[in-house]
Every structure is written in C-alpha cells, then in structure tokens.
C-alpha cells in the first residue's frame, strides 16, 4: 500500500482509537458548561448563563441508532415508573437512552429514579446529561437542585434553583413553589437555597425563622388598621 492510500486508513484508525476519549471529553465539557450555568446563576450572572446555554445548544443532537426501540423502551419505563417499579423502570429508561442518546426525557427520568433511590452521584450525572441535551429544561434543574440539597451543597442547590426559576415556563408558579420550599422544607440547605433564590430575583419571601415583633407597651398601637380589615369580595 502506498503512502497516499495508507494516510486515510491511518486517520480512520486514529479516529476510531480516539473516539472514546473524544466522547469523554465532550461529556466532561458539557458537565463543565452545566456547572458554569449553576455558578453563574448563583451569582445572578444572566449573560454568562445564557452564553453557556447557547454553547450547550450548539451541540449536535446525537444520532439515534434505533428510535423506534427507544420510544418503546421509554413508554415501558413510564409504565413501570407509574407502578413504582423503580429498578425495572430505570433499566427501561437506560435502554431508551442507549437507543436514542438524544432523548432528554429518558435521562431525566433516569436521574429522577436515581435520586429516589438515594444514588445521588448517578442522579447528578444523569440530570447533567439531560441538561446538556436541553439546558432550558426547568424540571431537570429542579431535580438537580434537590440532589444538591440532599448532598448538602448549598451553593449549587442555589444555582440550580435559580435556573429552575429562570427557565420556568410559568414563573409565577415557580415562584410559589420556591416560596413553599422556603417556608416549609425541613432540610436546611434546600430551604435556605429557595429563600436565597427568591431574594436573588428580588421576589418577596418570608423566612421561616423571623424576629419576634417588639411588643407595644401599654397597647399604644401605631398602626391604623385592624388585623383583618378585609371584606370578602
């Protein structure tokens, strides 16, 4: 074989040998972008978040080796998930993801199941994968925030919650969900993260722990309204 013919073969061999590394590098790079989105969201760096979002959105959608099988596996996963068969549902979603690596729903569900199983590192990886495929997916951000909350990672819980709000389709609903967490969540990290997220976006929030109101000695009342002056409309 002459040198001209050998060159393409060598390049092909080199590409095949390097493919796992390239994929790993892509994965690592996507993870970096997702983490950057979290960090920037936590500091209210909107432009930075959008920049990283655009980088992720520029990724080409991975080819689906078997889209029909992926759809079937995903439906099977949903059914099993509804029946609380978490292990079997996880296997189905993983199969769906293998058959269609661009299926963000499948990896998102896998992340949700990992979280329910308490397998937080795997949950984080799966949810980051879902976000790499669809960085404006508010529900994945919300689940990732819960994972970080359970892992006592306050900063990243804040960033993920901030992105939950940022990308929510209905921000008023997201605001009320955050307020609910900020006032009722038992886990300190997540509760405080929700409170900080509300404050980050200058939304009204009431901390669960509040200073006791100084009393009015002798009943001298500075306010000019009764406690419940409202007439039901």
């Amino acid at each position: 074989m002459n040198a001209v013919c050998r060159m393409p073969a060598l390049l092909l061999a080199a590409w095949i040998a390097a493919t796992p590394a390239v994929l790993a590098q892509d994965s690592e790079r996507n993870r970096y972008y997702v983490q950057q989105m979290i960090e920037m969201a936590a500091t209210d760096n909107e432009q930075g978040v959008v920049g990283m979002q655009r980088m992720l959105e520029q990724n080409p959608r991975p080819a689906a080796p078997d889209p029909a099988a992926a759809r079937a596996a995903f439906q099977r996963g949903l059914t099993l998930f509804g029946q609380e068969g978490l292990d079997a549902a996880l296997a189905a979603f993983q199969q769906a993801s293998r058959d269609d690596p661009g299926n963000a729903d499948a990896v998102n569900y896998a992340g949700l199941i990992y979280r329910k199983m308490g397998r937080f590192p795997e949950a984080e990886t799966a949810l980051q994968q879902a976000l790499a495929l669809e960085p404006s997916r508010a529900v994945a951000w919300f689940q990732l925030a819960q994972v970080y909350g359970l892992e006592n990672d306050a900063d990243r819980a804040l960033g993920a919650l901030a992105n939950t709000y940022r990308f929510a389709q209905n921000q008023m609903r997201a605001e009320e969900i955050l307020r609910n967490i900020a006032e009722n969540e038992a886990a300190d990290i997540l509760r405080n993260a929700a409170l900080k997220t509300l404050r980050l976006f200058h939304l009204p929030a009431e901390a669960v722990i509040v200073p006791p109101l100084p009393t009015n000695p002798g009943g001298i009342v500075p306010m000019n309204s009764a406690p419940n002056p409202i007439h039901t409309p």
Partner: protein
Amino acid sequence: MNFPSFTRSLALALALALALALAGALPAVAGQYETIDYYVQQMIALASAADEAGVLTFREQMENLPRPEPGDARQAHPFNQHGQERLAGGQLKEALAAFRQAFIADPTDPEIAGALGLTYLRSRRFKEAERLLVYALSLAPARSASWLTLGQVYGQQGDARRATGAFANAHRFAQDRPQVAEQLRQLATADPADAIRIGALQALRAARPASAAPPAPSPVLPSQPAAPVRPGTGSTSLPAAPVAPERPTTATDNLLGSLKQSLATLAQPADPVTTGSAAPGTADNGNPGQRIYRRSLPLTCLIVTFQDGKTANLGSGLLVSRDGLVITNNHVIDKAENLAVRCGDRESVARVRKRSREPDLASLATSLKSVDSFVLNQTYNQDLIGLDVFVIGNPYGLEGTFSTGVISGLREIDGVRYIQISAPISPGNSGGPVILRDGSVIGVATMGLKVGQNLNFAIAAAEVISSPIFEAKQMQIRRTGTP
C-alpha cells in the same frame, strides 16, 4: 482532558455570550410578571383618570397575551375547596398552604390565584398579595373580585391613588354593580386604613353616575387606632399592663419624661433586695443563675422607641462598654424617631451609632457611664453545644425576666452565625444578652422559630465581633477557646 482545546471552547463561549449581549439578543428573564404588571398598572392609571376607553383597550391587550400552559384542574379542586373552608374559618396558615397547592397544581385558574392573593393580603404579606392578584388579573382582566382585593392591597400600603384605580375597575367590571358599590361603601366608611377609605370613596364618586347607587359617604372618617390591650381583657395571655396615659409630644427634651411614663406602666422586675438575695458578686451557693442574674441585671437594658410622638416598640439591649455603648437588634430600633434606654435603674436618651441589617445588630450611644460592662465571648465551635445559658430581657415589657436553657446547636442562616438555644425568649427579648456561666455574653437574642418549642436563636457574639458595629477600643472580648 485536552485543556488547550477546552480553553479555546471556553473562550469561544465567553465570546459568544459577549456577542449576544452586545447584540441585545438576550431574552428578558423574569419578564413575564413585568409585562402583565405594566398592563395592570396602565388599567389602574386610566381608571383613576376615568378613561374608560383606555381601560378597555388595555384589557383587550391583556386578554391577547399568550396564556400559560393549562394546569391540572382536577388535582387543584380539592385543595381549593379546603382553602376556602380554612379561609372562611380564619385559619390563614392552613388556607395559605391549601391555596398554594391548588395554585401549583393549576396556575391558570384565576379564582385560585385570586384566593391565594386574598390569603396573602389577610396574612399582611402585601407584596406577595400584589403579585398574585396582578397575575390573576392577567388570566381574567375583568374579574371584579381580583380588582377589589388588589385595591385593598394598595390601600394597606398607603397608596390611595392605585387603590382608587383598582376599586374603580372592580366596580367597572362587576357583574353585580350594586353589590360591589355596597362593598366599596363599607370600605369607605369602616376600613381602618386611610388609603382604603379614600380609594373606595373616590371610586364610588367616580362610579356614581353610572351605577345610580346611593350617594357616597362623606367625608372620610379619620382613622381610629385599634383599642389598646387592657390587662386581662385581651385575647392573649399578655402580662397585665395598664393602659398608658396620653403621651406628651416626643421632643428630645421631654423624652425622659415620656420614657418614665412608659416604664411606669410596665411590670417591675423582681427585686433582689425584697427577695432577700445577697448583694451582687456574692458566691452562688451552688446556683450560678442567681450570681449571673445579680451581676447582669444592671448591664441589661430596656430599650423604648418613639415614633409619631408615641411609644412604638420596646426591646432589650446589653451594655458593652464603660462609656455607655449598648448593643441591640436593628429590628428593635428600626424606624424609631427617638430612643430611650434604661439599664438597671439608670436611664438615658440614646442615639443610633451604628446599625447593620445583616447581621441584625445596632449599637446605641448613651450617657450611661459604667465601671462594669458585658464581655463578648468570641467562641463559636461545637464545644459550646450543651453548655448552660442564661437570658435576661424584657419580654412583653416584663423587665429583667430571667430564663435558662442550654446551647442546642450552631446555625448559619444567610451567612450569619447563630447560636440555637433552648432558653425561652419572647417579643421584647430581642437584643438582650445570652450569657454563659462565666458571665460572658455568647449571643444576642434575636429570633425564634414559629413552630416547635424553645427553638430560639441568638446572633453569636463572634458574629457581633466581626460585624461593622463592633468597636475594638471600647468593647471587651473573651478570646476563643474559653467557653
């Protein structure tokens, strides 16, 4: 990982972000509420100006805004029902929880959003109420009930102009105008908030030709302050505190007189002399509480604030320097026009020297020179947990109330270090000292959890020392390691 290529990718990302920013292509995040609020405010302003055509134009525009994704009405229904029952029973907390769940399940039902807004209003959470009601109006711009509630939200915040516009729209869009006119008349005559009465009255006057309703009441009545709490007559179990006589106008020169009047109405602290106690500094006879109480009482201060010529609030403080510096919580003296302080049996007017919102601290300058003062204990580590603590303060005006407990935990909330204590504290304790057995101050009593029992929090003395109000030359520190 290939770092050079990775760095290039990063640079590319940043360049892209910059280009997007320069091109103005960034989406307006959080723009949903601002958009609908703009339309609602326009409808209010135009209603105030009796511009009916303008109101209807903006109503139409708002109705043409994109609708949010539909929710799950079936899931929301039972929560909504439960919320209505709780709200009717005055159980605001339960109503809030139920309406919230209903709203999260179906955020497209204007009745649910309006009910949540109304519950926030009754809970006196006006900002949340305003947001929910504006949102409810984006779903149904002609829903009279939402306008009526929104008018009350603005009125509660003293904004008579916007209350007027919202009330006018409540009347304009009412299906039963006489009924809404009657509701407005009730608000105009009986509501304690000035801006609500004014707004309702003006809306009625503007609506009179159209509704042919009975004449609007006139003039607007002056506001009547709520009846003072009398000993044994209140619904709470507050300590007996006789009704204070009319206060003199609060000028600095008669402030002390006013303070004395105020203090005279409050319950007196236990007197060590009449209880046969030994003088301060004597041995504790196995009871460190007595020793700590006797030594700390003269250094613990009652703080009285004055506003609009009347006594407004009271709280506690601690004397921390020989030249009369007193530390308290910022929320105790917030909005005070004048301040007076009594530490032990000595009184002084005070002025705010430094204050900080986070952490919630303030230092006051007084004329109370003292040979003794509290020492701040800088310790903040796990070894503190389980140590006995002693709290002195003025809960509900009960001067010099002493309570004990232990350090239950260390908490960092919003970047501020707190000491969780089991010693009871109540309103009026805020700003008072939390003391260790050695007499040093380990925290400043600040807040308590609404739920649970004896879950109270003091800003750690270590936090005081690192805060802007600390003054190294005047205040004494006990160094870390000697709790």
